[in-house]
Protein backbone atom coordinates (compact mmCIF):
# COMPACT_ATOMS: atom_id res chain seq x y z
CA UNK A 1 0.00 0.00 0.00
CA UNK A 2 2.79 2.41 0.91
CA UNK A 3 4.32 2.09 -2.56
CA UNK A 4 1.11 3.15 -4.21
CA UNK A 5 0.77 6.05 -1.80
CA UNK A 6 4.32 7.03 -2.76
CA UNK A 7 3.38 6.92 -6.44
CA UNK A 8 0.19 8.88 -5.93
CA UNK A 9 1.93 11.47 -3.76
CA UNK A 10 4.82 11.80 -6.20
CA UNK A 11 2.38 12.15 -9.08
CA UNK A 12 0.45 14.87 -7.30
CA UNK A 13 3.70 16.67 -6.51
CA UNK A 14 4.79 16.48 -10.17
CA UNK A 15 1.40 17.79 -11.29
CA UNK A 16 1.71 20.86 -9.13
CA UNK A 17 5.36 21.49 -10.01
CA UNK A 18 4.26 21.41 -13.64
CA UNK A 19 1.30 23.70 -12.97
CA UNK A 20 3.58 26.17 -11.20
CA UNK A 21 6.03 26.21 -14.10
CA UNK A 22 3.19 26.55 -16.60
CA UNK A 23 1.90 29.66 -14.88
CA UNK A 24 5.25 31.26 -13.99
CA UNK A 25 7.51 30.86 -17.02
CA UNK A 26 6.64 32.89 -20.14
CA UNK A 27 8.86 30.93 -22.56
CA UNK A 28 6.73 28.64 -24.74
CA UNK A 29 9.17 25.73 -24.60
CA UNK A 30 9.07 25.80 -20.82
CA UNK A 31 5.28 25.88 -20.91
CA UNK A 32 5.21 22.81 -23.13
CA UNK A 33 7.66 21.00 -20.85
CA UNK A 34 5.56 22.01 -17.86
CA UNK A 35 2.42 20.57 -19.44
CA UNK A 36 4.32 17.35 -20.07
CA UNK A 37 5.40 17.15 -16.44
CA UNK A 38 1.79 17.68 -15.38
CA UNK A 39 0.81 14.81 -17.66
CA UNK A 40 3.49 12.56 -16.16
CA UNK A 41 2.11 13.35 -12.71
CA UNK A 42 -1.34 12.22 -13.82
CA UNK A 43 0.13 9.00 -15.25
CA UNK A 44 1.84 8.24 -11.94
CA UNK A 45 -1.45 8.67 -10.10
CA UNK A 46 -2.95 6.21 -12.58
CA UNK A 47 -0.22 3.67 -11.92
CA UNK A 48 -0.94 4.04 -8.22
CA UNK A 49 -4.62 3.36 -8.93
CA UNK A 50 -3.62 -0.03 -10.36
CA UNK A 51 -3.24 -1.36 -6.80
CA UNK A 52 -6.95 -1.11 -6.11
CA UNK A 53 -7.69 -4.78 -5.41
CA UNK A 54 -6.84 -6.10 -1.97
CA UNK A 55 -5.28 -9.45 -3.01
CA UNK A 56 -2.08 -7.90 -4.35
CA UNK A 57 -2.94 -8.39 -8.03
CA UNK A 58 -2.40 -5.30 -10.17
CA UNK A 59 -5.35 -4.04 -12.19
CA UNK A 60 -4.15 -3.82 -15.83
CA UNK A 61 -6.74 -1.32 -17.05
CA UNK A 62 -5.06 1.83 -15.58
CA UNK A 63 -1.80 0.75 -17.21
CA UNK A 64 -3.54 0.44 -20.56
CA UNK A 65 -4.97 3.91 -20.02
CA UNK A 66 -1.51 5.27 -19.19
CA UNK A 67 -0.13 3.79 -22.41
CA UNK A 68 -2.90 5.44 -24.43
CA UNK A 69 -2.29 8.65 -22.52
CA UNK A 70 1.43 8.58 -23.32
CA UNK A 71 0.70 8.20 -27.03
CA UNK A 72 -1.76 11.09 -26.90
CA UNK A 73 0.63 13.33 -24.99
CA UNK A 74 3.38 12.53 -27.49
CA UNK A 75 1.18 13.72 -30.36
CA UNK A 76 0.22 16.79 -28.40
CA UNK A 77 3.78 17.69 -27.58
CA UNK A 78 4.76 17.34 -31.22
CA UNK A 79 1.95 19.64 -32.35
CA UNK A 80 2.76 22.18 -29.64
CA UNK A 81 6.46 22.19 -30.53
CA UNK A 82 5.69 22.75 -34.21
CA UNK A 83 3.44 25.62 -33.20
CA UNK A 84 6.12 27.15 -30.98
CA UNK A 85 8.65 27.00 -33.82
CA UNK A 86 6.09 28.56 -36.16
CA UNK A 87 5.34 31.38 -33.71
CA UNK A 88 9.05 32.05 -33.37
CA UNK A 89 9.46 32.14 -37.13
CA UNK A 90 6.48 34.43 -37.69
CA UNK A 91 6.90 36.86 -34.81
CA UNK A 92 10.52 36.46 -33.76
CA UNK A 93 9.60 35.97 -30.13
CA UNK A 94 8.95 32.90 -28.01
CA UNK A 95 6.33 34.20 -25.60
CA UNK A 96 2.72 35.35 -25.61
CA UNK A 97 3.76 38.87 -24.51
CA UNK A 98 2.76 40.81 -27.61
CA UNK A 99 -0.82 39.57 -27.66
CA UNK A 100 -2.45 42.94 -27.18
CA UNK A 101 -0.60 44.59 -30.04
CA UNK A 102 -1.43 41.72 -32.35
CA UNK A 103 -5.12 41.88 -31.47
CA UNK A 104 -5.12 45.62 -32.13
CA UNK A 105 -4.17 45.51 -35.78
Amino acid at each position, binding site marked *: MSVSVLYAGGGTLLFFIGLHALLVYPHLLRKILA*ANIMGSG*VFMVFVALGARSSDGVTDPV*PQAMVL*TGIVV*SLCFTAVALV*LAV*RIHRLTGCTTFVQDQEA*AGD
Partner: protein
Amino acid sequence: MNHLIIAPLLLPLVMGAVIVIGVNRSLAWQRTLGLLSSLAITLMTAVLLYQATTGPIQMYVLGDWSPPFGIILVLDRLSAMMIFITSVLALLCLLYAVRGTDEQGKNFHALFQFQLLGINGAFLTGDIFNLFVFFEIMLLSSYGLVLHGAGATRTRAGMHYVMLNLMGSSIFLIGVGLLYGLLGSLNMADMAVRLAHAPADNAALLQAGGLILFGVFALKAALMPLFFWLPNAYGFTSAPVAALFAVMTKVGVYVILRVYTLIFGDYAGGAANVLEPWLLPVALVTLVAGSIGVVASRDLRRTIAYMVVVSVGTLLAVIGTFETDAIAAAIVYLPHTTFMTAAMFLIADLIRQQRLDAGTVLTPDRPVGQERLLGLMFLGGAVAIGGLPPLSGFTAKVMMLTGVQSSSAAPWIWTLVLVGGLFGLIALGRAGSVIFWKTVPLDDGGSDAYSKPPHSGIPVYGGGYVLPVLVLLAISPLLVLCGGPLSEFAAAVAEQISQPVQYVEAVLGGDAVALLLSAAGGR
Protein backbone atom coordinates in the same frame (compact mmCIF):
# COMPACT_ATOMS: atom_id res chain seq x y z
CA MET B 1 -25.28 -6.59 -35.08
CA ASN B 2 -25.84 -3.48 -37.16
CA HIS B 3 -22.52 -2.70 -38.83
CA LEU B 4 -23.78 0.62 -40.12
CA ILE B 5 -23.20 2.13 -36.68
CA ILE B 6 -19.43 2.02 -36.99
CA ALA B 7 -19.43 3.23 -40.60
CA PRO B 8 -19.46 6.99 -39.70
CA LEU B 9 -16.17 6.34 -37.88
CA LEU B 10 -14.49 3.95 -40.31
CA LEU B 11 -15.19 5.88 -43.48
CA PRO B 12 -13.57 9.20 -42.44
CA LEU B 13 -10.69 7.26 -40.86
CA VAL B 14 -9.97 5.35 -44.06
CA MET B 15 -10.60 8.37 -46.31
CA GLY B 16 -8.39 10.59 -44.15
CA ALA B 17 -5.58 8.05 -44.34
CA VAL B 18 -5.97 7.67 -48.11
CA ILE B 19 -5.87 11.45 -48.57
CA VAL B 20 -2.76 11.72 -46.38
CA ILE B 21 -1.00 9.11 -48.50
CA GLY B 22 -1.95 10.94 -51.67
CA VAL B 23 -1.11 14.39 -50.31
CA ASN B 24 0.98 15.24 -53.36
CA ARG B 25 -1.80 14.41 -55.75
CA SER B 26 -3.91 17.15 -57.29
CA LEU B 27 -6.26 19.18 -55.16
CA ALA B 28 -9.15 18.08 -57.35
CA TRP B 29 -8.50 14.45 -56.37
CA GLN B 30 -8.45 15.33 -52.68
CA ARG B 31 -11.60 17.41 -53.02
CA THR B 32 -13.46 14.61 -54.78
CA LEU B 33 -12.56 12.07 -52.11
CA GLY B 34 -13.38 14.46 -49.27
CA LEU B 35 -16.74 15.43 -50.73
CA LEU B 36 -17.66 11.84 -51.61
CA SER B 37 -16.81 10.73 -48.10
CA SER B 38 -18.83 13.53 -46.49
CA LEU B 39 -21.78 12.82 -48.76
CA ALA B 40 -21.66 9.11 -47.93
CA ILE B 41 -21.47 9.86 -44.20
CA THR B 42 -24.47 12.16 -44.50
CA LEU B 43 -26.51 9.44 -46.18
CA MET B 44 -25.44 6.82 -43.63
CA THR B 45 -26.21 9.04 -40.65
CA ALA B 46 -29.62 9.81 -42.18
CA VAL B 47 -30.35 6.07 -42.25
CA LEU B 48 -29.06 5.73 -38.68
CA LEU B 49 -31.25 8.63 -37.59
CA TYR B 50 -34.26 6.93 -39.13
CA GLN B 51 -33.43 3.64 -37.40
CA ALA B 52 -32.89 5.34 -34.05
CA THR B 53 -36.13 7.29 -34.33
CA THR B 54 -38.25 4.27 -35.11
CA GLY B 55 -36.39 1.58 -33.20
CA PRO B 56 -34.82 0.88 -29.82
CA ILE B 57 -31.33 1.86 -28.62
CA GLN B 58 -28.73 -0.11 -30.58
CA MET B 59 -25.28 -1.17 -29.51
CA TYR B 60 -22.21 -2.05 -31.56
CA VAL B 61 -19.70 -4.30 -29.78
CA LEU B 62 -16.19 -3.98 -31.20
CA GLY B 63 -14.41 -7.31 -31.58
CA ASP B 64 -17.42 -9.01 -29.96
CA TRP B 65 -16.01 -8.43 -26.46
CA SER B 66 -19.23 -8.21 -24.55
CA PRO B 67 -19.74 -5.17 -22.32
CA PRO B 68 -18.60 -4.12 -19.76
CA PHE B 69 -15.26 -5.61 -20.85
CA GLY B 70 -15.05 -4.56 -24.47
CA ILE B 71 -15.41 -1.27 -26.24
CA ILE B 72 -18.90 -0.37 -27.38
CA LEU B 73 -20.63 2.19 -29.51
CA VAL B 74 -24.19 3.12 -28.62
CA LEU B 75 -26.70 4.64 -30.98
CA ASP B 76 -29.67 6.26 -29.31
CA ARG B 77 -31.85 9.08 -30.60
CA LEU B 78 -29.66 11.85 -29.19
CA SER B 79 -26.41 10.53 -30.64
CA ALA B 80 -28.09 9.75 -33.97
CA MET B 81 -29.37 13.32 -34.16
CA MET B 82 -25.96 14.73 -33.29
CA ILE B 83 -24.04 12.73 -35.90
CA PHE B 84 -26.64 13.68 -38.50
CA ILE B 85 -26.32 17.39 -37.70
CA THR B 86 -22.53 17.08 -37.78
CA SER B 87 -22.41 15.37 -41.14
CA VAL B 88 -24.87 17.75 -42.83
CA LEU B 89 -22.93 20.72 -41.51
CA ALA B 90 -19.60 19.15 -42.51
CA LEU B 91 -20.80 18.51 -46.05
CA LEU B 92 -21.91 22.14 -46.48
CA CYS B 93 -18.72 23.52 -44.92
CA LEU B 94 -16.65 21.35 -47.20
CA LEU B 95 -18.64 22.54 -50.23
CA TYR B 96 -17.74 26.08 -49.20
CA ALA B 97 -14.11 25.22 -48.43
CA VAL B 98 -13.43 23.75 -51.87
CA ARG B 99 -14.03 27.23 -53.27
CA GLY B 100 -10.59 28.35 -52.17
CA THR B 101 -10.01 27.85 -48.45
CA ASP B 102 -8.39 24.47 -48.97
CA GLU B 103 -5.75 25.96 -51.28
CA GLN B 104 -4.09 27.84 -48.44
CA GLY B 105 -2.21 24.84 -47.11
CA LYS B 106 -1.66 21.12 -47.42
CA ASN B 107 -3.65 18.43 -45.65
CA PHE B 108 -6.89 20.38 -45.25
CA HIS B 109 -9.02 17.50 -46.53
CA ALA B 110 -7.27 14.83 -44.47
CA LEU B 111 -7.60 16.89 -41.30
CA PHE B 112 -11.25 17.53 -42.10
CA GLN B 113 -11.95 13.79 -42.31
CA PHE B 114 -10.10 13.11 -39.04
CA GLN B 115 -12.08 15.90 -37.44
CA LEU B 116 -15.29 14.13 -38.49
CA LEU B 117 -13.95 10.87 -37.05
CA GLY B 118 -13.31 12.56 -33.70
CA ILE B 119 -16.69 14.30 -33.49
CA ASN B 120 -18.71 11.27 -34.60
CA GLY B 121 -16.74 9.06 -32.22
CA ALA B 122 -17.41 11.34 -29.26
CA PHE B 123 -21.13 11.18 -30.04
CA LEU B 124 -21.30 7.43 -30.50
CA THR B 125 -19.02 5.99 -27.85
CA GLY B 126 -20.45 4.28 -24.80
CA ASP B 127 -17.22 4.23 -22.86
CA ILE B 128 -15.82 7.16 -20.93
CA PHE B 129 -12.18 6.49 -21.68
CA ASN B 130 -12.95 6.26 -25.38
CA LEU B 131 -14.69 9.56 -25.00
CA PHE B 132 -11.32 10.93 -23.90
CA VAL B 133 -9.59 9.33 -26.89
CA PHE B 134 -12.13 10.71 -29.36
CA PHE B 135 -11.85 14.14 -27.72
CA GLU B 136 -8.13 14.00 -28.38
CA ILE B 137 -8.61 12.95 -32.01
CA MET B 138 -11.07 15.78 -32.42
CA LEU B 139 -8.69 18.28 -30.79
CA LEU B 140 -5.54 17.18 -32.60
CA SER B 141 -7.18 17.61 -35.98
CA SER B 142 -8.87 20.83 -34.88
CA TYR B 143 -5.43 22.29 -34.11
CA GLY B 144 -4.43 21.66 -37.67
CA LEU B 145 -7.66 23.16 -38.99
CA VAL B 146 -7.53 26.23 -36.72
CA LEU B 147 -4.05 27.01 -38.00
CA HIS B 148 -4.86 26.25 -41.62
CA GLY B 149 -3.62 29.11 -43.80
CA ALA B 150 -1.91 30.50 -40.74
CA GLY B 151 -0.80 34.04 -40.08
CA ALA B 152 0.88 35.26 -36.91
CA THR B 153 -2.40 36.13 -35.15
CA ARG B 154 -3.98 32.85 -36.09
CA THR B 155 -0.95 30.91 -34.89
CA ARG B 156 -0.90 32.71 -31.56
CA ALA B 157 -4.64 32.19 -31.01
CA GLY B 158 -4.05 28.55 -31.91
CA MET B 159 -1.27 28.19 -29.34
CA HIS B 160 -3.60 29.40 -26.58
CA TYR B 161 -6.17 26.87 -27.74
CA VAL B 162 -3.60 24.05 -27.69
CA MET B 163 -2.25 24.87 -24.21
CA LEU B 164 -5.73 25.19 -22.68
CA ASN B 165 -6.87 21.90 -24.12
CA LEU B 166 -3.66 20.21 -23.04
CA MET B 167 -4.50 21.15 -19.46
CA GLY B 168 -8.09 20.09 -20.05
CA SER B 169 -6.93 16.64 -21.15
CA SER B 170 -4.84 16.16 -17.99
CA ILE B 171 -7.81 17.11 -15.85
CA PHE B 172 -10.10 14.82 -17.84
CA LEU B 173 -7.70 11.96 -17.12
CA ILE B 174 -7.68 12.81 -13.42
CA GLY B 175 -11.48 12.71 -13.32
CA VAL B 176 -11.65 9.44 -15.26
CA GLY B 177 -8.94 7.93 -13.05
CA LEU B 178 -10.75 8.93 -9.89
CA LEU B 179 -14.01 7.40 -11.09
CA TYR B 180 -12.29 4.24 -12.31
CA GLY B 181 -10.44 3.89 -9.01
CA LEU B 182 -13.72 4.03 -7.12
CA LEU B 183 -16.02 2.16 -9.49
CA GLY B 184 -13.72 -0.20 -11.40
CA SER B 185 -15.40 0.31 -14.75
CA LEU B 186 -15.18 2.65 -17.70
CA ASN B 187 -18.33 1.56 -19.52
CA MET B 188 -20.84 4.36 -18.96
CA ALA B 189 -23.83 2.09 -18.42
CA ASP B 190 -21.84 -0.16 -16.08
CA MET B 191 -20.60 2.90 -14.21
CA ALA B 192 -24.20 3.96 -13.67
CA VAL B 193 -25.06 0.56 -12.16
CA ARG B 194 -21.96 0.46 -9.96
CA LEU B 195 -22.45 4.03 -8.83
CA ALA B 196 -25.90 3.08 -7.57
CA HIS B 197 -24.27 0.51 -5.28
CA ALA B 198 -21.22 2.55 -4.28
CA PRO B 199 -20.60 2.66 -0.51
CA ALA B 200 -21.74 5.86 1.16
CA ASP B 201 -18.28 6.85 2.42
CA ASN B 202 -17.12 7.23 -1.19
CA ALA B 203 -19.90 9.67 -2.01
CA ALA B 204 -17.77 12.79 -1.58
CA LEU B 205 -14.99 11.45 -3.82
CA LEU B 206 -17.49 10.34 -6.45
CA GLN B 207 -19.09 13.77 -6.46
CA ALA B 208 -15.64 15.32 -6.80
CA GLY B 209 -14.92 13.04 -9.78
CA GLY B 210 -18.17 14.08 -11.40
CA LEU B 211 -17.49 17.75 -10.93
CA ILE B 212 -13.87 17.48 -12.16
CA LEU B 213 -15.26 16.00 -15.37
CA PHE B 214 -17.75 18.87 -15.56
CA GLY B 215 -14.80 21.29 -15.50
CA VAL B 216 -13.41 19.66 -18.64
CA PHE B 217 -16.77 19.50 -20.40
CA ALA B 218 -17.32 23.16 -19.52
CA LEU B 219 -14.03 23.96 -21.25
CA LYS B 220 -15.18 22.13 -24.39
CA ALA B 221 -18.62 23.70 -24.29
CA ALA B 222 -17.10 27.15 -23.57
CA LEU B 223 -18.92 27.89 -20.33
CA MET B 224 -18.02 30.83 -18.10
CA PRO B 225 -15.21 31.24 -16.96
CA LEU B 226 -13.67 28.87 -19.51
CA PHE B 227 -14.84 30.45 -22.77
CA PHE B 228 -12.11 33.04 -23.33
CA TRP B 229 -10.28 30.84 -25.82
CA LEU B 230 -13.31 30.70 -28.10
CA PRO B 231 -13.65 34.22 -29.58
CA ASN B 232 -9.98 34.23 -30.56
CA ALA B 233 -9.85 30.72 -31.93
CA TYR B 234 -13.14 31.03 -33.85
CA GLY B 235 -12.64 34.67 -34.78
CA PHE B 236 -9.25 34.25 -36.41
CA THR B 237 -9.57 30.89 -38.13
CA SER B 238 -10.80 30.36 -41.68
CA ALA B 239 -14.55 30.61 -42.22
CA PRO B 240 -15.52 27.01 -43.10
CA VAL B 241 -13.51 25.76 -40.12
CA ALA B 242 -15.22 28.23 -37.78
CA ALA B 243 -18.56 27.13 -39.24
CA LEU B 244 -17.75 23.47 -38.62
CA PHE B 245 -16.62 24.33 -35.10
CA ALA B 246 -20.16 25.57 -34.40
CA VAL B 247 -20.82 21.90 -33.68
CA MET B 248 -17.71 21.43 -31.50
CA THR B 249 -19.11 23.35 -28.53
CA LYS B 250 -22.24 21.22 -28.93
CA VAL B 251 -20.05 18.18 -28.28
CA GLY B 252 -19.52 19.62 -24.80
CA VAL B 253 -23.27 20.16 -24.42
CA TYR B 254 -23.97 16.62 -25.60
CA VAL B 255 -21.48 15.09 -23.19
CA ILE B 256 -22.85 17.06 -20.24
CA LEU B 257 -26.33 15.88 -21.13
CA ARG B 258 -25.18 12.28 -21.52
CA VAL B 259 -22.91 11.89 -18.48
CA TYR B 260 -25.07 13.74 -15.99
CA THR B 261 -28.32 12.03 -16.93
CA LEU B 262 -26.88 8.53 -17.39
CA ILE B 263 -24.05 8.15 -14.86
CA PHE B 264 -24.88 10.86 -12.33
CA GLY B 265 -28.64 10.61 -12.77
CA ASP B 266 -31.42 9.91 -10.30
CA TYR B 267 -30.11 6.46 -9.37
CA ALA B 268 -26.56 7.48 -8.54
CA GLY B 269 -26.87 7.12 -4.77
CA GLY B 270 -24.75 9.65 -2.91
CA ALA B 271 -23.67 11.31 -6.13
CA ALA B 272 -27.16 11.59 -7.63
CA ASN B 273 -27.82 14.73 -9.67
CA VAL B 274 -24.46 16.14 -8.66
CA LEU B 275 -24.54 18.79 -11.34
CA GLU B 276 -28.03 20.12 -10.69
CA PRO B 277 -27.06 23.00 -8.36
CA TRP B 278 -24.23 24.11 -10.65
CA LEU B 279 -25.26 23.90 -14.26
CA LEU B 280 -28.05 26.46 -14.32
CA PRO B 281 -26.19 29.35 -12.58
CA VAL B 282 -23.00 28.75 -14.57
CA ALA B 283 -24.98 28.67 -17.81
CA LEU B 284 -26.84 31.88 -16.96
CA VAL B 285 -23.58 33.70 -16.16
CA THR B 286 -22.19 32.45 -19.48
CA LEU B 287 -25.28 33.79 -21.22
CA VAL B 288 -24.74 37.24 -19.69
CA ALA B 289 -21.01 37.32 -20.44
CA GLY B 290 -21.60 36.15 -24.00
CA SER B 291 -24.28 38.81 -24.56
CA ILE B 292 -21.91 41.52 -23.34
CA GLY B 293 -19.27 40.20 -25.72
CA VAL B 294 -21.77 40.23 -28.59
CA VAL B 295 -22.52 43.95 -28.22
CA ALA B 296 -18.95 44.90 -27.33
CA SER B 297 -17.21 43.34 -30.35
CA ARG B 298 -16.11 45.62 -33.12
CA ASP B 299 -15.61 42.82 -35.59
CA LEU B 300 -18.39 40.79 -37.18
CA ARG B 301 -16.49 37.50 -36.83
CA ARG B 302 -16.01 38.04 -33.11
CA THR B 303 -19.66 39.06 -32.69
CA ILE B 304 -20.68 35.73 -34.17
CA ALA B 305 -18.10 33.88 -32.07
CA TYR B 306 -19.66 35.39 -28.96
CA MET B 307 -23.07 34.30 -30.28
CA VAL B 308 -21.78 30.74 -30.06
CA VAL B 309 -21.11 31.40 -26.36
CA VAL B 310 -24.63 32.81 -25.96
CA SER B 311 -26.17 29.80 -27.64
CA VAL B 312 -24.26 27.42 -25.36
CA GLY B 313 -25.37 29.44 -22.33
CA THR B 314 -28.99 29.32 -23.50
CA LEU B 315 -28.90 25.60 -24.23
CA LEU B 316 -27.34 24.65 -20.92
CA ALA B 317 -29.53 27.01 -18.89
CA VAL B 318 -32.57 25.26 -20.34
CA ILE B 319 -31.02 21.81 -19.91
CA GLY B 320 -29.91 22.85 -16.42
CA THR B 321 -33.49 22.62 -15.19
CA PHE B 322 -33.24 18.85 -15.95
CA GLU B 323 -36.92 18.68 -16.85
CA THR B 324 -38.07 16.54 -19.74
CA ASP B 325 -40.03 19.31 -21.48
CA ALA B 326 -37.14 21.72 -21.20
CA ILE B 327 -34.66 19.18 -22.57
CA ALA B 328 -37.01 18.54 -25.50
CA ALA B 329 -37.11 22.26 -26.25
CA ALA B 330 -33.32 22.46 -26.07
CA ILE B 331 -33.15 19.59 -28.57
CA VAL B 332 -35.24 21.69 -30.97
CA TYR B 333 -33.00 24.72 -30.42
CA LEU B 334 -29.74 22.82 -30.89
CA PRO B 335 -29.86 22.18 -34.67
CA HIS B 336 -31.23 25.67 -35.26
CA THR B 337 -28.41 27.42 -33.43
CA THR B 338 -25.71 25.17 -34.90
CA PHE B 339 -26.74 25.71 -38.49
CA MET B 340 -27.46 29.42 -38.12
CA THR B 341 -24.17 30.35 -36.44
CA ALA B 342 -22.39 28.32 -39.13
CA ALA B 343 -24.30 30.22 -41.82
CA MET B 344 -23.38 33.53 -40.21
CA PHE B 345 -19.68 32.62 -40.16
CA LEU B 346 -19.83 31.89 -43.88
CA ILE B 347 -21.80 35.08 -44.64
CA ALA B 348 -19.22 37.10 -42.68
CA ASP B 349 -16.53 35.54 -44.84
CA LEU B 350 -18.41 36.46 -48.04
CA ILE B 351 -18.65 40.04 -46.75
CA ARG B 352 -14.96 40.09 -45.80
CA GLN B 353 -13.83 39.15 -49.27
CA GLN B 354 -15.76 42.00 -50.85
CA ARG B 355 -14.61 44.63 -48.33
CA LEU B 356 -10.96 44.83 -49.17
CA ASP B 357 -10.01 47.55 -46.66
CA ALA B 358 -12.11 46.88 -43.59
CA GLY B 359 -12.80 43.13 -43.87
CA THR B 360 -15.18 42.17 -41.09
CA VAL B 361 -14.19 45.10 -38.85
CA LEU B 362 -17.25 47.25 -38.22
CA THR B 363 -16.08 50.58 -39.62
CA PRO B 364 -17.58 52.37 -42.61
CA ASP B 365 -16.02 51.26 -45.88
CA ARG B 366 -16.94 51.18 -49.54
CA PRO B 367 -20.08 49.20 -50.32
CA VAL B 368 -19.67 45.47 -50.90
CA GLY B 369 -19.71 44.29 -54.49
CA GLN B 370 -23.03 42.43 -54.42
CA GLU B 371 -25.01 44.49 -51.94
CA ARG B 372 -28.42 43.00 -52.60
CA LEU B 373 -27.35 39.37 -52.40
CA LEU B 374 -25.16 39.72 -49.31
CA GLY B 375 -27.61 42.10 -47.63
CA LEU B 376 -30.50 39.69 -48.04
CA MET B 377 -28.46 36.74 -46.79
CA PHE B 378 -27.26 38.74 -43.81
CA LEU B 379 -30.85 39.77 -43.06
CA GLY B 380 -32.04 36.18 -43.25
CA GLY B 381 -29.31 34.94 -40.97
CA ALA B 382 -29.82 37.78 -38.49
CA VAL B 383 -33.58 37.24 -38.29
CA ALA B 384 -33.08 33.52 -37.71
CA ILE B 385 -30.32 33.84 -35.15
CA GLY B 386 -31.94 36.78 -33.35
CA GLY B 387 -35.12 34.80 -32.80
CA LEU B 388 -37.62 36.87 -34.79
CA PRO B 389 -40.69 35.30 -36.41
CA PRO B 390 -41.20 33.63 -38.85
CA LEU B 391 -37.90 31.73 -38.74
CA SER B 392 -36.79 28.87 -36.53
CA GLY B 393 -35.08 30.97 -33.85
CA PHE B 394 -38.47 32.28 -32.78
CA THR B 395 -40.25 28.94 -32.54
CA ALA B 396 -37.31 27.32 -30.76
CA LYS B 397 -37.14 30.11 -28.19
CA VAL B 398 -40.88 30.03 -27.56
CA MET B 399 -40.64 26.28 -26.98
CA MET B 400 -37.74 26.72 -24.58
CA LEU B 401 -39.42 29.46 -22.59
CA THR B 402 -42.62 27.46 -22.21
CA GLY B 403 -40.56 24.34 -21.45
CA VAL B 404 -38.91 25.88 -18.40
CA GLN B 405 -42.12 27.42 -17.06
CA SER B 406 -42.50 25.00 -14.17
CA SER B 407 -38.93 25.52 -12.96
CA SER B 408 -38.33 27.83 -10.02
CA ALA B 409 -35.55 29.56 -11.99
CA ALA B 410 -37.95 30.38 -14.84
CA PRO B 411 -37.98 34.18 -14.24
CA TRP B 412 -34.18 34.28 -14.48
CA ILE B 413 -34.08 32.16 -17.62
CA TRP B 414 -36.87 34.17 -19.26
CA THR B 415 -35.23 37.50 -18.52
CA LEU B 416 -31.72 36.57 -19.51
CA VAL B 417 -32.63 34.63 -22.66
CA LEU B 418 -34.83 37.47 -23.88
CA VAL B 419 -32.32 40.20 -23.01
CA GLY B 420 -29.56 38.13 -24.61
CA GLY B 421 -31.68 37.83 -27.77
CA LEU B 422 -32.27 41.58 -27.75
CA PHE B 423 -28.54 42.25 -27.43
CA GLY B 424 -27.90 39.91 -30.33
CA LEU B 425 -30.44 41.79 -32.47
CA ILE B 426 -28.91 45.15 -31.53
CA ALA B 427 -25.42 43.94 -32.39
CA LEU B 428 -26.46 42.40 -35.70
CA GLY B 429 -28.61 45.42 -36.60
CA ARG B 430 -25.69 47.71 -35.94
CA ALA B 431 -23.31 45.49 -37.88
CA GLY B 432 -25.68 45.33 -40.83
CA SER B 433 -26.24 49.07 -40.96
CA VAL B 434 -22.51 49.81 -40.80
CA ILE B 435 -21.66 47.28 -43.49
CA PHE B 436 -24.52 47.89 -45.91
CA TRP B 437 -25.76 51.46 -45.30
CA LYS B 438 -23.04 53.57 -43.70
CA THR B 439 -20.82 53.18 -46.72
CA VAL B 440 -18.32 55.59 -48.22
CA PRO B 441 -20.04 56.74 -51.43
CA LEU B 442 -18.46 56.11 -54.80
CA ASP B 443 -18.60 58.47 -57.82
CA ASP B 444 -19.30 57.32 -61.36
CA GLY B 445 -15.69 56.35 -62.02
CA GLY B 446 -15.63 54.08 -58.97
CA SER B 447 -13.43 56.37 -56.83
CA ASP B 448 -14.64 57.08 -53.31
CA ALA B 449 -15.12 60.41 -51.52
CA TYR B 450 -11.46 60.52 -50.55
CA SER B 451 -10.68 60.15 -54.29
CA LYS B 452 -8.86 56.89 -53.75
CA PRO B 453 -8.75 54.86 -56.96
CA PRO B 454 -11.29 52.05 -57.40
CA HIS B 455 -10.37 48.66 -56.07
CA SER B 456 -9.55 45.90 -58.44
CA GLY B 457 -9.97 42.23 -57.83
CA ILE B 458 -13.19 42.25 -55.82
CA PRO B 459 -14.53 38.73 -56.26
CA VAL B 460 -18.03 38.27 -57.68
CA TYR B 461 -19.87 35.27 -56.30
CA GLY B 462 -21.60 32.87 -58.64
CA GLY B 463 -24.33 30.42 -57.75
CA GLY B 464 -21.98 27.64 -56.65
CA TYR B 465 -20.22 29.92 -54.21
CA VAL B 466 -23.28 30.95 -52.24
CA LEU B 467 -25.12 27.63 -52.55
CA PRO B 468 -23.84 26.12 -49.26
CA VAL B 469 -24.78 29.31 -47.42
CA LEU B 470 -28.23 29.39 -48.99
CA VAL B 471 -28.81 25.74 -48.08
CA LEU B 472 -27.76 26.46 -44.49
CA LEU B 473 -30.15 29.42 -44.36
CA ALA B 474 -32.93 27.35 -45.93
CA ILE B 475 -32.68 24.90 -43.02
CA SER B 476 -34.24 27.56 -40.78
CA PRO B 477 -37.66 27.79 -42.52
CA LEU B 478 -37.46 24.03 -42.98
CA LEU B 479 -37.19 23.60 -39.22
CA VAL B 480 -40.32 25.74 -38.83
CA LEU B 481 -42.27 23.89 -41.52
CA CYS B 482 -41.36 20.53 -39.98
CA GLY B 483 -42.10 21.90 -36.53
CA GLY B 484 -44.66 19.20 -35.67
CA PRO B 485 -42.54 16.13 -36.43
CA LEU B 486 -39.47 17.89 -35.04
CA SER B 487 -41.04 18.60 -31.67
CA GLU B 488 -42.40 15.04 -31.51
CA PHE B 489 -38.91 13.76 -32.24
CA ALA B 490 -37.42 16.08 -29.62
CA ALA B 491 -39.92 14.85 -27.05
CA ALA B 492 -38.93 11.26 -27.87
CA VAL B 493 -35.24 12.14 -27.48
CA ALA B 494 -35.84 13.85 -24.16
CA GLU B 495 -37.89 10.92 -22.92
CA GLN B 496 -35.07 8.52 -23.79
CA ILE B 497 -32.48 10.71 -22.07
CA SER B 498 -34.41 11.19 -18.88
CA GLN B 499 -34.87 7.43 -18.52
CA PRO B 500 -31.32 6.07 -18.32
CA VAL B 501 -32.82 2.66 -17.55
CA GLN B 502 -33.44 2.17 -21.29
CA TYR B 503 -29.78 2.85 -22.06
CA VAL B 504 -28.56 0.48 -19.34
CA GLU B 505 -30.94 -2.23 -20.56
CA ALA B 506 -29.76 -1.89 -24.15
CA VAL B 507 -26.11 -2.20 -23.12
CA LEU B 508 -26.08 -4.60 -20.20
CA GLY B 509 -29.44 -6.34 -20.33
CA GLY B 510 -32.30 -6.80 -17.87
CA ASP B 511 -30.26 -8.08 -14.92
CA ALA B 512 -28.29 -4.85 -14.71
CA VAL B 513 -31.51 -2.86 -14.74
CA ALA B 514 -32.84 -4.92 -11.86
CA LEU B 515 -29.59 -4.25 -10.02
CA LEU B 516 -29.88 -0.52 -10.72
CA LEU B 517 -33.48 -0.36 -9.58
CA SER B 518 -32.86 -2.45 -6.47
CA ALA B 519 -30.38 0.16 -5.27
CA ALA B 520 -32.91 2.89 -5.89
CA GLY B 521 -35.61 0.97 -4.03
CA GLY B 522 -33.30 0.33 -1.09
CA ARG B 523 -32.83 3.99 -0.40
